[in-house]
């Protein structure tokens, strides 16, 4: 039932987008505060993530950028003692309330982690995991989803002859692209990426960035990165976090060329962080 509700919402939003010709935010965050126990990790965050854009979240270690990203699919709550206040809506639905089960939210919002984390299963089973847990049983349909997702992740040609071999036989970069393919297999609205290339070599990093560019027409991406060149290369908008607050959020080209806040200027020019 709830799934259909969300799907309808999505269609409504497409119409709004076409009519008014502006980027409707997929995620809207208003006055978000988050505490780990008594530590105030996110302070009064207001941020929108627009449909079919790449939003980069940058900032020094411990600034709350990963915490914010994990709030968007509520993975942040898996560690105990987290208190959240404020509003986060995903396609118009409040995700912090009880009305939306996390399983539904996460079926629409994929996540790619810092270290590639494929399952100790075959490449095929990794990609088929999402569709299977959401109820797809038909082998023919699964085959199509797997091939399609691997093609979108630019991995099909590399793995098509060993689909049923363990994913652990792949290189780190291939594993990370497999994790992206695994997300794509459930046709998500958004993919959250938490420093997806920090464990990869430059060539693999380049391939993942190429992949992000090629899928951004189909899916909204929010990416946390330590690497400012990466943010400027791949993102449309950038938000700069510092000590749990948003210092500045703007078009990437604007933020990197003419930052309005002195601290942003200092950070992107490597004077701290």
């Amino acid at each position, binding site marked *: 039932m709830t799934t259909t509700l969300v799907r309808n919402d999505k269609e409504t939003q497409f119409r709004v987008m076409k009519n008014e010709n502006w980027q409707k935010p997929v995620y809207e965050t208003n006055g978000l505060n988050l505490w780990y126990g008594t530590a105030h990790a996110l302070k009064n965050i207001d941020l929108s993530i627009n449909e079919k854009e790449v939003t980069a979240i940058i900032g020094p270690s411990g600034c709350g950028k990963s915490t914010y990203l994990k709030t968007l699919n509520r993975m942040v709550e898996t560690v105990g003692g987290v208190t959240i206040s404020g509003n986060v809506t995903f396609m118009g639905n409040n995700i912090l309330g009880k009305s939306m089960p996390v399983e539904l939210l996460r*079926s629409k919002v994929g996540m790619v982690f810092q270290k590639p984390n494929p399952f100790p299963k075959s490449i095929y089973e990794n990609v088929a995991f999402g569709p299977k847990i959401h109820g797809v049983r038909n082998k023919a349909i699964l085959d199509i989803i797997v091939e399609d997702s691997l093609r979108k992740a630019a991995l099909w040609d590399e793995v098509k002859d060993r689909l049923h071999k363990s994913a652990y036989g792949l290189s780190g970069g291939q594993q990370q692209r497999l*994790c992206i393919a695994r997300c794509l297999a459930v046709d998500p609205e958004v993919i959250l990426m938490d420093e997806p290339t920090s464990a990869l070599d430059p060539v693999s990093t380049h391939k993942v960035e190429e992949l992000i560019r090629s899928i951004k027409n189909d899916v909204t991406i929010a990416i946390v990165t330590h690497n400012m060149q990466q943010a400027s290369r791949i993102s449309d908008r950038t938000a700069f976090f510092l000590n749990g607050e948003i210092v500045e959020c703007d078009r990437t080209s604007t933020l990197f060329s003419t930052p309005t806040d002195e601290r942003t200027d200092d950070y992107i020019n490597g004077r701290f962080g």
Partner: protein
Amino acid sequence: MDHNLQAKISRRIAKDSAMKWLFGSAAAILVAVIAFLFYGIGADGVDRLNLSFFTNFGSRFPEKAGLKAALVGTLALMAVVIPVSMFIGLCSAIYLEEYAPKNKWTAFIEMNISNLAGVPSVVFGLLGLTVFVRAMSLGNSILAAGLTMSLLILPIIIVASQEAIRSVPDALREASYGMGATKWQTILHVILPSAIGSILTGSILSFSRAIGETAPLIVLGIPVIVQFLPTGPLSTFTALPMQIYDWAKRPQPAFADAASAGIIVLLIMLVTMNAFAIYFRNRSEKKLKN
């Protein structure tokens, strides 16, 4: 070259080889004991290992005595122990690792489970006698003995399964939850497939302990000379360790040979089970190695 330094280094090298001999001889003692045991048992028992030894029931005459009833009894006992202890043990371990809140209560329960693993088996025998044999009126049946043995090995299975579940990297749980899987789907499709090898290893080792345990069976009043095969879970039975214990304490030397032959059968069962345990451990280690 500094003469003093040279002397110091020679001393260190001498110490090094002395330590090597110390550790080597400690290991050699163990090997010698095992070799002596195998030789002694093998020399006495191997002649008795013929077909009639497996097809005869127990007897007053040592040359006619066989372990048919005991072998079938032990297998019947395992048919109760394995499903009961695996089911309760695995479910408890999953609860403690994946569902229970990490607080003082859980820690207290876990500490008690670990302590239970060290309780002498005769105590479990007394527990079984009170609860299963008398209170539940199961008598000295396969079911009563099987439930007692299950209690005895449950703590070992729970602790081994908990460790196996804990060793599944959190990154895999995150990946699964991140895809929108429920807790049960994550346990069924991600955690158990990764942990099952180590769980089986720990469980099989505890089953082999249950096969060899004698004290609880004595306390439960399991008979030694049984002239029939068990007919169901409430049937009276005897088991291999009881049979060996009975033969070993009889005065005729020919019964000692039968006991040795019984021990060979028991050891072969245990070694086979341990080989399976090692196989499962190696396979699961290989699988989780990224």
